[in-house]
């Protein structure tokens, strides 16, 4: 049999090789251009800031030689930066938690609605998701300004006008408003897959509603909670538009500090900004991996 197939194999191998070559060119043609773009204009820029973060800031703020570790040193010792980190992570945490507390019941409501309504209700959550973020933030400026609608209402109720804009509350409102759809959509996807007869089974076995929710439904919809939290948390911590427009110059998030280090402060400091951006990314990545691992383990 081995003798018979040997002559047959020869031309086959040739054919195979030419097929493989053809496939390789096809793959290269399909993958090449996009891959080039991502490497040149995504991966390479990240490499540039890695290098910049180890350089010395020149008089104009641009990076110069020699290489140094002092940028990282400053980030971990100077109060301004440490505070910005803590503050941003805290704001991110509060925003994520509140989005979850609003988003979970909302997603559940949409799923429990009659099928005809469900599409409309989901679509209504989807619209803000596609709508200009800047415009949605600006809408809150109109509402919260000193002679704005909310202050008119406060005044009409007999209270003195309040400073609403440029406060922590304004920033938090804007952040939740901007991020809520990002929480609801993954939650919807994961609650939709949940088998509601399990809740009946739990109550048949003597669990009350709260127990059934905490021990059955919540663990089983954890992937949605995790995905939604990550989608809310990351943009929130890096936010600078909301804190800039609704918080004035008073409420600083990491994003605002980064912007100033690259563009506004006198002089700017690109190496320090690069180091800060990288640490920020690193903290987030580690946090996200940790979070996903924990929540999916619970799920098992």
């Amino acid at each position, binding site marked *: 049999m081995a003798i018979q197939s040997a002559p047959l194999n020869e031309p086959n191998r040739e054919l195979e090789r030419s097929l493989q070559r053809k496939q390789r060119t096809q793959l290269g043609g399909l993958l090449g*251009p996009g891959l080039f773009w991502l490497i040149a204009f995504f991966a390479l820029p990240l490499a540039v800031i890695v290098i910049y973060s180890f350089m010395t800031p020149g008089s104009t703020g641009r990076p110069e030689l020699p290489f140094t570790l002092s940028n990282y040193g400053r980030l971990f010792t100077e109060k301004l930066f440490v505070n910005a980190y803590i503050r941003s992570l805290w704001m991110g945490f509060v925003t994520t938690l509140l989005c979850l507390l609003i988003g979970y019941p909302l997603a559940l409501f949409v799923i429990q609605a009659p099928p005809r309504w469900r599409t409309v209700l989901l679509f209504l959550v989807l619209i803000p998701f596609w709508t200009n973020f800047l415009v949605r933030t600006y809408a809150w400026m109109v509402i919260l300004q000193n002679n704005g609608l909310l202050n008119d209402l406060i005044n009409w109720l007999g209270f003195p006008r309040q400073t609403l804009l440029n406060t922590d509350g304004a920033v938090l409102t804007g952040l939740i408003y901007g991020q809520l759809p990002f929480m609801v959509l993954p939650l919807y996807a994961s609650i939709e897959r949940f088998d509601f007869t399990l809740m009946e089974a739990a109550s048949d076995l003597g669990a009350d509603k709260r127990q059934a929710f905490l021990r059955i439904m919540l663990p089983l919809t954890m992937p949605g909670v995790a995905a939604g939290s990550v989608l809310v948390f990351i943009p929130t911590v890096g936010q600078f538009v909301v804190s800039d427009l609704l918080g004035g110059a008073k409420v600083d998030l990491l994003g605002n500090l980064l912007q100033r280090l690259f563009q506004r402060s006198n002089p700017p400091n690109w190496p320090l900004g690069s180091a800060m951006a990288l640490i*920020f990314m690193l903290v987030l990545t580690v946090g996200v991996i940790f979070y996903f691992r924990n929540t999916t383990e619970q799920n098992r």
Partner: protein
Amino acid sequence: MIETASPPRTAATPLVVQRRRSIAANLHAAFSIAAYVFLYAPILILVLFSFTTDAFGARLTGFTFNWYAQLLDDKRLVSATLNTLQVGIVSTIVSTALGTTMALAMERFRFRGRTGVDALLYLPVVIPEIVMALSLLAFFAFAFQILEGLFNISLRNGLATVIISHIAFSISFVVIVVRASLQGFDRRLEEAAQDLGANEWQTFWRVTFPIILPGIIGGALLAFTISLDDFVISFFTGPGVNLLPIEVYSQVKRSITPKINAISTLMLLVSMTLVLLSQAVQRKR
């Protein structure tokens, strides 16, 4: 849904429990409606206040279309709109082409380094936008410095750098949408076409392409929306470039006027049209 799933048991449930349950359900409904009000009230107020005669745009004193007429007189705003459309159209065409071919490669081929490419594709979606924007700003400065040093070409940030960056940002989103439409693809259709004598090129254009077209259009619409709405990436990669979100931002920083309400309303209208379009395309699928 929990209640309706078990009708026979309700008769046996004590009345008090039943009433408490319906109170809870009502509270849940009220809470959810309040959440919808929270999502839509600001948008509606903004639209309403774009028609007010009050020059500060803070009170409803009368109805006028005046602010919309004034938009056309604002030369900066008009040119910003044209620039934004130009960036949006070019970056959408390029990122859709690159994203679609990449999606095909990722779904149809198994190759070494595929996981690495996968990671590279998902990173731009997950990474904080500002980090990507700053890295591009640093990268362009670095690249321009090298070009100037080596070839004595002096380049500056402008529409081109913004377009390049928008493409880099949008490719991943296009890939995700197109890959989703490729996953439900019945490959026997292609085999059938080839059995009937079509070559690969014909098979692709006559069978594969029409089937995944809704996915490609969906991806393109998403890329276009992202480009039109983007502020952070444009702000850092094209300093001084006149784009709509940047112009609105700088006007807002100065003062709140009904004119900004008017341009914002128009931007909302465009966004909503794009969502409706993408939904219509998806439903066809």
